[in-house]
């Protein structure tokens, strides 16, 4: 691992850092002799963030679970074959409150409330996956 002090990193001259160099040697950044960060290739960072997010989800949610899927990343309702997005779109289409949705779909109220909270935090992901599904169907020739 290469080491770079923060003072060097703040200077105006150009550091020769490219992807190959980062792949071969992670670069440690120190401040006052103490390590404060590491430069890694961006794809490794993304992989780490995805892993970190999954771990966080597993820890945080009681009624939602991750399931392997070819392209979906959003969580599912534990014990049901239903994504959070499918629940939310049902609620929105039928103007259901969380309590009404829980009663109508025979779900624990806490599970619906947790799903709604998850949706609020991950709205971009759920909407992107709804668009992804529509695009996949359109690519197969279905009118969406």
């Amino acid at each position: 691992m290469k080491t770079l002090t923060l003072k060097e990193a703040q200077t105006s001259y150009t550091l020769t850092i490219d992807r190959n160099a980062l792949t071969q040697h992670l670069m440690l950044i120190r401040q006052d002799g103490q390590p404060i960060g590491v430069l890694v290739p961006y794809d490794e960072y993304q992989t780490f963030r995805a892993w970190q997010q999954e771990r966080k989800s597993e820890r945080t949610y009681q009624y939602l679970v991750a399931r392997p899927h070819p392209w979906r990343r959003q969580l599912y309702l534990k014990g049901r074959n239903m994504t959070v997005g499918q629940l939310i779109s049902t609620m929105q289409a039928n103007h259901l409150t969380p309590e009404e949705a829980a009663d109508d779909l025979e779900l624990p109220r806490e599970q619906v409330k947790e799903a709604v909270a998850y949706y609020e935090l991950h709205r971009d992901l759920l909407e992107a996956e709804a668009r992804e599904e529509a695009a996949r169907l359109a690519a197969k020739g279905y009118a969406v």
Partner: protein
Amino acid sequence: MLVDVGYKVQIPARAGLTGYDDLAHFRYAQEHGFTIVTKDADDFECLHQKHPHHNGVLAVCEETDRSKNMQPVQLA
């Protein structure tokens, strides 16, 4: 609503399929002559490609544009 107009309707809970995967629902509908109504359009399309002999799949896509959601009066 469907029952009111004479359709026989089954739901996963009554069929003992709560929490089962897509293939289990697909097989049940296939064996009992039901048409599937699902919001899981892409996954059931894949099942349709693998097992083309079934009684139909009515897929309802999630719509990110809420203004396009049908109102109950439009569905009735």
